[in-house]
């Protein structure tokens, strides 16, 4: 049997009719009924849904700098297991990904690992300090081909700087991904400001701190004719503003995390920092508005905001704990639970918000493509009937901070094909894809995480 040929038999393509997919040499060689290839490894797709590999627009891989939290290797293993074939690695590493050198390092680490496409996100400002533009053009022209820029974790709150960033990225078809958080309104903020924070005595993170920045940014985007992406929208009011902006023809896209689609601030009553995240978990009314917004296209994509932390950063007082949750290995299941099983979306819609549109926003060639003949074979097989209980200790990510621990969720990733190579088979990690040709070896960059 040829090593690079796989025949998937009878999988429901995007949840539709069952068909066969023949994968050969990295591309979908054929799609149809009763395909034959004597050389192919046959995979029974009965009962499975075939989807395009998921593309995460918002991942924290922590390397370089916090290899005790996650590495490119462990984070991308988690991504492959979660059904992803591409992730956007956020810039808040140490050193910050604000130069061509750092984004090329992350990019080459991703290639060396070979589990998914690693698309580095460049910082908007030097050191995420919000004072001076980073060399966005150099990052765009680098081998990492950066198109998305974000100071994620910190809001580009200076309106002039935000305006300039939006203008500048037009030169290379970039997008500014904003972490919308008015800093003065959220000084010391610990959780959503509302009925629960009033009782718990935790400093509030008001919805208006997110919404006011989004309102400003969509108007700036319109004014300068650029492209804006709003990270992890978390409030009903934000959905309203994005809806209004789109109706005005403003070029804005928005993302929601799986955790904001399922969890509310009621969980904070436990004071368990596993529920501490930024933006914070909101109310049930917000959760419902986010689901509706994702279903009707106001919110374009799901982004995990996968944020692994070492256990000592969560085993402490709430106020001392780091913000963030892991999400790569639970994203598919949570979106199935909240959007598909509720009847709000079909699997074709799922493919739109987890693959097609994220690839367009990030300008990722060869990802988020239709499952058609001649297209790159980034394909996943999902068993929608599976049920599993989340155990953070069994995950590939180094982070144990999953807010879904102990929860039963639907859907599991049976196989992930990345560039035609099965990185995941039978729900388990297989082998990474190996690039031909020589991209600068990671050793030359002086830092490498072995596989």
């Amino acid at each position, binding site marked *: 049997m040829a090593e690079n040929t796989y025949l998937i038999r009878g999988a429901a393509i995007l949840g539709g009719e069952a068909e066969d997919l023949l994968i050969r040499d990295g591309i979908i060689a054929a799609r149809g009924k009763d395909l034959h290839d004597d050389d192919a490894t046959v995979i029974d797709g009965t009962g499975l849904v075939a989807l395009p590999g998921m593309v995460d627009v918002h991942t*924290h891989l922590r390397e370089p700098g916090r290899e005790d939290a996650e590495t490119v290797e462990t984070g991308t293993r988690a991504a492959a297991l979660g059904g992803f074939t591409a992730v956007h690695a956020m810039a808040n590493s140490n050193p910050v990904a604000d130069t061509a050198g750092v984004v090329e390092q992350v990019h080459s680490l991703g290639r060396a690992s070979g589990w998914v496409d690693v698309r580095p996100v460049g910082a908007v400002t030097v050191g995420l300090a919000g004072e001076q533009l980073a060399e966005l053009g150099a990052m765009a022209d680098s081998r990492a081909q950066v198109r998305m820029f974000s100071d994620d974790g910190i809001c580009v709150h200076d309106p002039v700087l935000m305006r300039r960033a939006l203008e500048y990225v037009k030169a290379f078809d970039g997008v500014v991904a904003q972490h919308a958080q008015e800093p003065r309104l959220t000084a010391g903020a610990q959780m959503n400001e509302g009925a629960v924070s*009033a009782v718990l005595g935790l400093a509030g993170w008001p919805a208006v701190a997110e919404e006011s920045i989004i309102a400003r940014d969509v108007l700036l985007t319109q004014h300068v004719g650029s492209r804006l992406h709003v990270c992890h929208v978390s409030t009903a009011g934000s959905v309203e503003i994005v809806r209004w902006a789109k109706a005005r023809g403003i070029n804005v896209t928005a993302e929601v995390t799986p955790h904001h689609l399922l969890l509310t601030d009621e969980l904070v009553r436990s004071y368990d920092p596993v529920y501490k995240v930024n933006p914070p978990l909101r109310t049930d009314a917000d959760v419902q508005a986010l689901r509706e917004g994702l279903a009707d296209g106001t919110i374009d994509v799901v982004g995990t905001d996968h944020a692994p932390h070492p256990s000592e*950063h969560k085993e402490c007082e709430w106020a001392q704990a780091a913000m963030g949750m892991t999400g790569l290995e639970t994203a598919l299941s949570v979106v199935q639970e909240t959007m598909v099983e509720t009847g709000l979306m079909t699997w074709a819609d799922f493919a739109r918000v987890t693959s097609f549109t994220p690839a367009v926003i990030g300008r990722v060639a060869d990802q988020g493509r239709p499952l058609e003949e001649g297209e790159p074979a980034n394909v996943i097989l999902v068993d929608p009937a599976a049920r599993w209980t989340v155990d953070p200790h069994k995950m590939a990510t180094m982070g144990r901070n999953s807010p879904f621990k102990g929860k039963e969720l639907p859907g599991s990733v049976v196989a992930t094909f990345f560039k035609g190579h099965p990185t995941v088979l039978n729900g388990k990690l297989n082998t990474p894809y190996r690039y031909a040709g020589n991209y600068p070896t990671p050793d030359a960059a002086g830092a490498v995480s072995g596989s």
Partner: protein
Amino acid sequence: MKHLLSTENLSAFDAIRVLDTAEEMSAVGDREVKKLPALRGRTVVNLFFEDSTRTRISFEAAAKRLSADVINFAAKGSSVSKGESLKDTAQTLAAMGADAVVIRHWASGAPHRLAATDWIDAAVINAGDGTHEHPTQALLDAFTMRRHWSQLNGTKSTGADLRGMRVAIVGDVLHSRVARSNVWLLRTLGAEVTLVAPPTLLPIGVEHWPCKVSYNLDETLEAGVDAMMMLRVQGERMHASFFPSTREYSRRWGFDDARLRALDDLGMKDTIIMHPGPMNRGLEISSAAADSPRSTVLAQVRNGVSVRMAALYLLLSGDSREATAATAATPHAVSQPTKESN
């Protein structure tokens, strides 16, 4: 009751049991030998991450009157100030065989963390956490109110609640753990509570609380009050624009001499004036009010010892607590939790 973490979830039964037990304990304070052997051989740790001499010595006196061994652990000058985590501190105390931990912490929810994790198996008493709760303060306030209310009604205080009593809590509700604990406990005991504060010092979400809210102290007085509870206000709050100046605060929300006279003019001869201390004389309360016969400030301090004796006694020698061996702590590397964004 295994722990005393908040009044929000304290049942009326348990609350009245603490207050009734405190009545018995207060009799001990009237004796020449102010000591009971109830907690002999038990170890109570006062774990204070925030300075509070008043609360600490009150708990210390309470534990000693019950013959417990008391260890005072102040975070300043200890391993905590060298970056030891709450987990490691808790496990260290567990290894030393602490039976109860009285914890004061600047972070809301820290006592809940001690109680909810397997770091330590001791009974946890919240001695004030951040801007969350201060349950023993609310219990001593309720104890003080109940004695007053029972006396007025000519009934025995033991077994009684506070039904019909009108209580105004005035001041910085937003940052006050005392206000929160009082609102929940007074609701449970049947009192009618009105919060009086500048709108800036009330939390978003206060409309869901089981009480009335007013911005006007004089109107609240005119409507009739049986207990005025003045909260401590930090003058520095004016720098964060919570109010324009301490003088304006004092004029609108301070219990000054004019309002003290107003109580007489309005015929409220039995209304008491309470303050959890320490007082800012001239800011939220005038000296005349603080020193008037209506003031219960010192009675509150006295009652605090009785209430804390009751809490320690019920948690440590009550029937509800199982004797379990302290779990052996594993030494961990000292690590400094850092604040990080996603």
